[in-house]
């Protein structure tokens, strides 16, 4: 059977990795290459690497940097940040990304999803959706690293992304990011139940229990986490041991 993936998220800013709260990420947490080497050794299921200043700075992804990192990365690697064109997708795959994460670029031009899927296959197009709650059972999608309200409803946008050819959704609750108090289970479930493609829950993981809930209650196919791996003693491997004890299928 297919296993639940536990995916560390690495946020890259300027020269190294950062992690903060609610999309304000100023705390330095070390070098990217060093982190990738550690996760290689630990044989994590998959890695997400996001350049969080590319879109706000209005620049393309740093292909040379990603080339160097991908050469050391013997695990599946999803790369995002600043992806606005088919050329960006092609060049990221070329330097070693297995999947490309699109967010603001796809909101501005949804055809980017369709073109990417047609050329390179749905399986390598991950659509990241960042959300904030606007009322009970209601959320709004934000672009530009959580800065710009879009007026989009995440369920409708996820469905549209799937119809355009997205292979996965990475759903992040902005308010929960870095708080380590648990994922937004309601929005995770609403989006997961609305689409037939895998949904990666992101934003808020602080304990292994949170990860189990994202799967059992949020119906997520995979769980992403950053702070709990950067700032606590918890590891992806121990997370999977916990998930297995909770009756979920994982790779150990």
């Amino acid at each position, binding site marked *: *059977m*297919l*296993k*639940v*993936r536990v995916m560390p998220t690495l946020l890259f800013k300027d020269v190294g990795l950062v992690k903060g709260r609610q999309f304000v990420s100023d705390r330095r947490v070390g070098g990217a290459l060093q982190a990738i080497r550690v996760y290689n050794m630990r*044989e994590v*299921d*998959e890695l997400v690497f996001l350049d969080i200043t590319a879109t706000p700075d209005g620049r393309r992804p740093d292909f040379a940097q990603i*080339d160097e990192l*991908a*050469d050391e*990365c*013997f*695990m*599946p690697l999803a790369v995002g940040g600043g992806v606005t064109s088919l050329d960006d997708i092609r060049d990221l*795959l*070329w*330097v*070693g*990304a*297995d*999947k490309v994460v699109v967010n603001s670029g796809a909101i501005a031009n949804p055809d980017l999803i369709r073109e990417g899927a*047609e*050329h*390179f*296959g*749905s*399986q*390598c197009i991950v659509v990241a959706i960042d959300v904030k709650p606007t009322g009970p059972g209601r959320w709004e999608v934000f672009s530009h690293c959580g800065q710009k309200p879009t007026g989009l409803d995440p369920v409708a946008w996820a469905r549209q992304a799937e119809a355009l050819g997205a*292979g*996965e959704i990475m759903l992040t609750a902005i308010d929960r990011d870095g708080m380590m108090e648990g994922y937004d289970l309601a929005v995770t479930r609403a989006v997961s139940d609305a689409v*037939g*493609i*895998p949904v990666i829950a992101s934003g808020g993981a602080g304990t292994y229990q949170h990860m189990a809930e994202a799967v059992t209650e949020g119906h997520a*196919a*995979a769980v992403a986490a950053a702070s709990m791996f950067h700032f606590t003693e918890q590891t992806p491997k121990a997370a999977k041991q916990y998930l297995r004890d909770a009756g979920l299928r994982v*790779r150990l």
Partner: protein
Amino acid sequence: MPTAVVINYGLCNLDSISRALEECGADVRVTDDPAALAKATHLVLPGVGAFAKAMQNLKARGLDAAIRERMAAGVPFLGICLGMQLLAATGTEGGTEVPGLGLVEGDVVRLQPRDGERVPHVGWNEVHGTDGWPLFDGIAPGTDFYFVHSYHVRAAGCDRAASTPYAGGFVSALAKGNVMATQFHPEKSQKPGFQLLRNFLKR
């Protein structure tokens, strides 16, 4: 030292497979030149993406004929993911039938998810039916490998076929003479993946 030639038809990440083959002890060359295939002791056709576009690119570069010629010469060949699908007689991506390389009997069809399953099939899943298969030497049957795909090969007439329990079960690896193929990505499957690549290079 084996010389592994990775066939480049302009669609995908070739870095991962090249780096992995190097780590497994091969001298690796990446090429889109059909003539360069003659130098290979081992051929690798990687790939993700769309079947029709891939076939079109292979043909435009004259790589389809070169691949067939090398296969007939008995060079060990490994198709990975889309590279496995391209071996089939027919692809059906996007509703239209497209001829493949025709080196394996069968067609390429979309995964039909069962209750609660999602497509694409993304992540780690088991590969069964590999006992006594040299390509899986040192790898326990049922080991998890990394998958990321929406289509699979309905293969027939193979010497060996492994299966993975998803969408009712599909062929996740096959062998027919000197042709080997995996629907999963050995280059992204860590220890068991590297073991498989080393086994391939020993052929």
